């Protein structure tokens, strides 16, 4: 084996091509979890179609000793289980890579490549011979390729067994069959090919203290810890699992053992307009409430979001972004709702945004979102995307500080109301643009009238220009306060002095970080800022001004983050350049590197 090849230990990408609805999901996560438990950092990306059964689906697992959790852009080991896409999958393999196919059926001689290794394994035949039940034969084929990979990649069989036992803890009788299938694949591989391959997995200790979880589940858990009690939603991919997560945790943690009574109320709304309406009604009435949705939902919620901004009601919205415009590609990822969310609704409206970059932040920023919404009395939109939301990411274990107390903001309770002369809902008594609110029914003095029409600081209806101006100018002051309260950007400075920086947001983070490292190796040094929230805290503009040139990397066509920076900071727009990745599959480090190299080249030219 060449030295080059050697260096591929714990550093390569597996892609499994399959058909959806054939139960490959569990096989793939078994594969990934095994590597994770062997202490080797790993990440998995699921590329699935927008239907339920029978269409091509791919699962990509990156084994990355350096914990580069983005896609690399390569495919080193392809498991081609789908005849339909065989040719495409074959061509996708990076030179020097390996392709494994089901040799039960002879493959088209025309379809071959000399620059990769092609290994046939008669998965279907072995399973058909070994298993009688039809459904089992289909499912076990997947376990069989796990076995084959176990042998070829030198995976730890005990780890696999433990995982299989955990997975089928409920139906233990399924364990043997699954293990047999795995053995079938493993044995065949060992007998016919010299295992392991150059690309293989060696135990490390780099995953301790970490978990593998998807961002939607983590966000749902965050809502539980934030004390949210009302969740309203209308199902939409890829946001559905946020509510599934919340529901699951609530059923475990919020149901009275005796009475079966629930400390939460989840309402499946008739549509997104109703979902956000329910949230606003609930927060007005003193509960913490949220709704998860996706692009089309944001469009439908925009009238109500403007109401929330103008009438000053808290609300937490999770927008798990998918490919737009319109219905777009519901099972593909993008970061293209940034502007729609920031300025949702007609009139002079603006909203507070949070941008988690991985599951742990989904958990943490979920909590932050509720605090900010209550403190600022305005909707807060948490922008995830399909990649963060639905893929399993390796991240640090979630932690909780029991000393933490939630911030319900400026709320006058019965006692406080007792002591005040009069209560005026929209009076800016503290100069921070944030008035005091009350919960209905708490105290006679607390009564006020919420409306989306013109109102003055006493909460009375008005059509007076001056009172209207006072109101919207105070809302601006409040937004300035928001800029002070939101999470600051994450800044990473190069060891070398540099006048060039790169900025990104959300799930683009890992791809950018890897690109920065690799470029550094080539002598290109970049400082880095990841935006975590809008409105931008002072640090954002300050960082930009430190640099003559700033690359903005994001996953949309229209440079939406760059647009927001252009509008909402005083940094000259001429000095910002875009690196855009918007095909719907998660951004990989190579696209960032190539983007920067091209721009740099042009830069020199200019």
């Amino acid at each position, binding site marked *: 084996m060449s030295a080059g090849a050697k260096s591929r230990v714990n550093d390569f990408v597996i892609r499994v091509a399959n058909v959806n609805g054939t139960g490959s999901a569990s096989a793939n996560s078994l594969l990934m979890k095994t590597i994770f438990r062997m202490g080797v950092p790993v990440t998995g990306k699921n590329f699935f179609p927008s239907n339920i059964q029978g269409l091509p689906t791919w699962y990509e697992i990156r084994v990355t000793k350096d914990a580069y959790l983005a896609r690399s852009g390569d495919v080193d080991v392809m498991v081609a289980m789908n005849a339909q896409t065989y040719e495409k999958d074959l061509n996708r393999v990076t030179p020097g890579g390996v392709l494994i196919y089901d040799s039960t059926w002879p493959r088209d001689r025309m379809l071959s490549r000399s620059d990769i290794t092609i290994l046939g394994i008669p998965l279907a035949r072995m399973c058909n011979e070994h298993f009688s039940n039809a459904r089992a034969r289909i499912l076990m084929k997947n376990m069989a390729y796990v076995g084959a990979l176990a042998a070829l990649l030198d995976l730890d069989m005990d780890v696999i067994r433990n995982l299989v036992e955990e997975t089928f803890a409920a139906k233990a009788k399924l364990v043997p069959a699954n293990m047999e299938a795995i053995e079938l694949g493993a044995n065949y591989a060992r007998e016919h090919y010299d295992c392991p391959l150059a690309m293989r997995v060696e135990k490390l200790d780099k995953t301790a203290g970490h978990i593998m979880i998807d961002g939607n589940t983590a966000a749902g858990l965050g809502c539980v810890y934030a004390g949210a009690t009302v969740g309203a939603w209308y199902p939409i991919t890829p946001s559905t699992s946020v509510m599934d997560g919340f529901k699951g945790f609530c059923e475990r943690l919020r149901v009275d053992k005796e009475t079966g009574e629930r400390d939460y109320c989840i309402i499946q709304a008739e549509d997104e307009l*109703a979902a956000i309406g329910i949230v606003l009604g609930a927060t007005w009435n003193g509960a913490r409430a949220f709704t998860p949705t996706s692009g089309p939902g944001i469009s439908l919620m925009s009238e109500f979001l403007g109401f929330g901004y103008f009438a000053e009601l808290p609300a937490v919205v999770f927008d798990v972004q998918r490919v737009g415009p319109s219905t777009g590609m519901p099972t593909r990822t993008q970061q293209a709702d940034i502007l729609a969310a920031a300025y949702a609704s007609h009139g002079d409206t603006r909203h507070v945004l949070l941008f988690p970059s991985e599951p742990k932040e989904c958990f943490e920023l979920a909590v932050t979102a509720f605090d900010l919404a209550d403190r600022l009395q305005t909707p807060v939109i948490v922008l995830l995307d399909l990649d963060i939301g639905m893929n399993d990411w390796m991240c640090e274990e979630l932690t909780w500080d029991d000393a933490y107390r939630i911030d319900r903001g400026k709320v006058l309770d019965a006692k406080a109301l007792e002591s005040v002369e009069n209560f005026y809902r929209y009076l800016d008594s503290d100069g921070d643009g944030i008035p005091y609110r009350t919960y209905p029914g708490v105290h006679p003095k607390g009564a006020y009238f919420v409306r989306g029409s013109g109102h003055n600081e006493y909460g009375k209806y008005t059509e007076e220009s001056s009172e209207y101006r006072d109101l919207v100018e105070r809302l601006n002051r409040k937004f300035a306060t928001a800029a002070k309260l939101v999470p600051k950007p994450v800044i990473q400075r190069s060891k070398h002095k540099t006048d060039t920086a790169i900025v990104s947001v959300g799930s683009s983070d890992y791809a950018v970080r890897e690109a920065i490292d690799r470029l550094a190796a080539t002598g290109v040094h970049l400082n880095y800022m990841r935006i975590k929230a809008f409105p931008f805290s002072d640090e954002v503009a300050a960082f930009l001004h430190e640099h003559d040139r700033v690359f903005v990397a994001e996953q949309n066509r229209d440079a939406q983050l760059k647009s927001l920076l252009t509008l909402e900071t005083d940094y000259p727009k001429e000095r910002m350049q875009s690196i855009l990745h918007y095909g719907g599959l998660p951004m990989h480090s190579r696209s960032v590197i190539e983007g920067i190299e091209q721009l740099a080249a042009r830069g020199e030219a200019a």
Partner: protein
Amino acid sequence: MTYIAKPKILHGGLERNALGLTIRDYEGGMSTLCAGCGHDSVTAAIVQAIFELDIPPHRVAKMSGIGCSSKTPAYFLSASHGFNSVHGRMPSVATGAAAANCGLYLLGVSGDGDSLSIGIGQFAHAVRRNLDMCYIIENNGVYGLTKGQFSASADVGSKAKKGEVNQQPPIDAVQLAMTLGGTFVARSFSGDKDQLVPLIKAAIKHEGFALVDVLSPCVTFNDHEDSTKSYAYTRQFFHRAMHLDYVPPAEEIKAAYDEGEVMPVQLHDGSRILLRKISEDYNVNNRGAAIDYIRAHQRKGEIVTGLLYIDESEPDMHGLNRTTLTPLSEIPYERLCPGSETLSKLQKRYR
């Protein structure tokens, strides 16, 4: 007038209710509606009803959408919380409000445009959830605030002020609610305070979604000849299916009735509705029969009013969701947050 003993007059003028409050304490801001607008009479009936129910104003949440009708919450119960939402979307806001705090009385006021056009989807699903609220539609057959276009409740053949004749069949909120499983369905007329006040009381006390569709003429855009929603037309054709009284819990029924003449309906809190002079062919607990009865009179051009259907047995939204009896908004955070230990346990399966 009702059969229950009226609160006695205290020395020094105004009548006071059990809370020692006078009707003034239940009034609101000055109405900015047109002089003679039916909606103002409904406002008066609401004030009367809640005053007589001895409900502390701040325990009532007034919900509405957009329209002349939806403005009225500003004209009653100034001491209550009010929520003037966006057009046609009040039911969802009320749903959230109910979810957050099951302890408040939710009183919704909407219009035929607000509820049957832009809002029909939310209206339908609030009925389906049996949301615990009193939902009043001030029905005038037009969009008043936007100057008189036909609404979805306009009758075939009814003429607009500018002369246009409506051709499309009307959507009847009452029959719609019946079909969707509504548990309290009533119709009344803004000009019939005797009937309206006890109906509103019962609607507020009903545990579930209580629809009161009130014919409430628009004097400015739909009170002319050839309008089927004018005062004149409604007065002529509305048909009381029954007289009714509301009797609060505790209170025993004073007047003596002959057998059969009165039909009492018991509400959750022990209060009762007494249906009197109810046409014998009418059964207020039978959905199908009620629909037939209404349709039959409709064919005769009559508008049946009264409590048309009631079912106290169905669970409301909280019942369906098995939420705790403590208002969710009042559960202390400590009870809601599982804490660090649980968190680390929870993560086992993700390791």
